[in-house]
């Protein structure tokens, strides 16, 4: 090494010591750079995560100085609670609806945008505008659209489909899909731009040779775009899934889980038990299940991403 050559006068041991000291100093500098982010992260993300698991083993109202250790009782109660299974089921339906919409519409729209020479930027701007809106804005505007005298029913009436109109969020059969559509409105623009970036990185010669073989637009989409984009589709799929699973704001600001629990999701269920009923231990056990599911999906997505990059 260069260091040994330039310090030829030093003994081997001195060189090693110097290298060690330099290594230690380099480590210290690196950790000083990372310290602000790491300390905040350990204190306000990792610590509450660890505490959450502890909390789930206690019966506690969140205020009392004493808490009663109950072991796995909260989980036993949870698995026997029909409302938990209802919330989990609703959550899964919500995820499926939202992911299906965002992946298909995102993919079709991105390939349309890639072919649209004119106005691509303005369309992209418009599709992305809902993405930057606060979730409370999405919730409020769509709640209004879904009112019995709201925009949706008036529009249905105007095109002769008035018989379909009803209070979309007041009906247990339509409330959950209606909320999924509102969430899709606010999210599909992001999947459009991710897919568009993916499409633009596809080798153009694949399209050229497909065109020479006489393929039409639909065939090129199915035989070139979709297979070439498979890694991106996987990533978007998992990200949308993880995001959709965490839905809280839009439910809390519109239906609060109703009518008759038809829109209760895990996050709102946990929020009610934990804060509204002041059952911190029980709420924590819900949050543990919630986190295990999300982290499981996230770890799968990280592994897939690593594999894609190789």
């Amino acid at each position, binding site marked *: 090494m260069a260091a040994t050559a330039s310090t030829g006068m030093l003994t081997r041991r001195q060189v090693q010591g110097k290298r060690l000291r330099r290594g230690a100093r380099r480590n210290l500098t*690196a950790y000083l750079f990372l310290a602000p*982010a790491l300390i905040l992260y350990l204190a306000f993300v990792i610590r509450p995560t660890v505490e959450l698991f502890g909390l789930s083993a206690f019966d506690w109202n969140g205020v009392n100085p004493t808490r009663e250790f109950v072991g796995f009782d909260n989980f036993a109660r949870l698995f026997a609670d029909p409302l938990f299974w209802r919330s989990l089921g609703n959550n899964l339906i919500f995820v499926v609806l939202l992911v299906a919409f965002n992946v298909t519409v995102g993919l079709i*729209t991105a390939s349309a945008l890639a072919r649209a020479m004119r106005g691509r930027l303005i369309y992209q701007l418009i599709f992305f505008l809902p993405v930057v*809106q606060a979730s409370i804005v999405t919730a*409020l505007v769509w709640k*209004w659209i879904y009112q019995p005298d709201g925009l949706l029913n008036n529009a249905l009436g105007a095109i002769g489909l008035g018989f379909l109109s009803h209070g979309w969020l007041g009906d247990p059969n339509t409330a959950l899909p209606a909320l999924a559509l509102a969430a899709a409105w606010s999210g599909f623009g*992001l999947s459009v*731009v991710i897919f568009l970036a993916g499409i633009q990185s596809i080798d153009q010669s694949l399209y050229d040779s497909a065109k020479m073989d006489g393929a039409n637009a639909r065939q090129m989409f199915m035989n070139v775009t979709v297979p070439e984009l498979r890694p991106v589709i996987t990533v978007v799929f998992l990200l949308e899934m993880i995001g959709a699973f965490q839905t809280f704001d839009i439910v809390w600001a519109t239906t609060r889980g109703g009518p008759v629990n038809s829109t209760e999701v895990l996050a709102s269920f946990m929020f009610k038990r934990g804060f509204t009923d002041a059952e911190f231990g029980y709420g924590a056990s819900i949050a543990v299940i919630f*986190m295990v599911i*999300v982290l499981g999906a996230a770890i799968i997505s990280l592994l897939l991403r690593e594999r894609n990059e190789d």
Partner: protein
Amino acid sequence: MVSPTPAAQRTTPAMSRFWQRRGGKLMLYTYLTVLALFSLAPLALAWSTAFKTRAQVVSNPYGLPFPPAFENLAEAWTSGRFSQYFMSSLIISLLSVVAMVIVAPLAGYGLARMKFWGRRLVVVVLLIGLTIPITAIILPLYTIMRDLHLLNTYWSVVITHVAVGGPFFAFIMRAFFMRMPEALADAARVDGCSELRVFWNIMLPLVRPGVLTVALLEFLWSWNNLILPLVFLTSENVRTLPVGMLLLTGRFSTDYGLLSAAVLILSLPVVVLFVLFQRNFVEGLASGAVKG
């Protein structure tokens, strides 16, 4: 240019493809325009209703607000106390941006440019942090903030924003630093610059677009966030816009003029920033999804 087409050529494959393409283009733009209406109509409805009087909301629910009325905005701003909520939101968002713009580049530089013991472990732990949902840890976070006597202070929200967003923005900054040439930094190191000076004087100016992206996205997220101020800030003098809006929907659920004014006040700053810095928003949000 108009040239007469011989009848024979109309039936050639080339010609039929031409028409197919014409039809395809029409379908393409019809599809995009319908979807654009789907994106735009809800916002346009709220923004235009914000400028309508109560009578106009009833008589002309979907038309343009003409003449524009400002009574809803005035009411939301004053008796609706949205001026105060606006200030709370602004203070929290600006504090979060300032903190993040310091924390994220430092961490990103450390991750991108330094070799240290435990680096792989740090990366993995931060990657996990990208996915820990804030709603899942809100119960213990609440008790932690209470024990630190930070409830009903802006700091409770700011600290959590920076702690939770830190890993994401650190990875964004890492990607920016990794694209920069190392030669410049090496030259400075040979001249005896400390690592902090290399970072501050040489590398940081090079990644200014990255810092801007971090600032914009952090602003967006802290401005729009609902759950943290909902849980941490219960007294009215520190209430933020999203929470104020949530309460407004409960109390005046059918006063659409007032609600629309609230929507406008909340979304206007973000929309203006988005239109000005579209590239930063789009690339920043998409990079989080693709690169991690």
